[in-house]
């Protein structure tokens, strides 16, 4: 005795991330101001 990929057109999941000052930043607060481009990268201080 015991299931989801993000697609265009879906509502974006909202999360709270930390800014460089350590304070939480909600994604929905950013998108409320206009379209947002999110760019993900492996790590700081690396070419990638």
């Amino acid at each position, binding site marked *: 005795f015991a299931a989801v990929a*993000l697609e*265009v057109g879906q509502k974006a999941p909202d*999360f709270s*991330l930390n800014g460089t*000052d350590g304070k939480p930043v909600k994604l929905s607060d*950013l998108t409320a101001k206009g*379209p947002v*481009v999110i760019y*993900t*990268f492996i790590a700081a201080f690396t070419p990638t």
Partner: protein
Amino acid sequence: MGVSTDHHLALAAWQKDQKSKQLLLSDFRRQMLPAYDAMQTDQASPVYRYAKRAYFIIDKSGTVKFIKVMDSPLNLLEPAEVLAAVKAAAP
């Protein structure tokens, strides 16, 4: 804005080093990246959990308008392609 799994202090140091004003956000707890299918993992190493190189555009209503997850972190999108997608997302 840029998102990675770095600690926010690492991002702050990098931002200062690069003299950048780009908004950088830390997903140190690995909550957002898996939900966006943008986290690279390795079955041989449970601690290997880093962001893939990916682009997302979310419009003002919070709807996903563009997704591009790159096969290799060495691949970049052309800025023109991203700009065109942003213009399409902004009515």
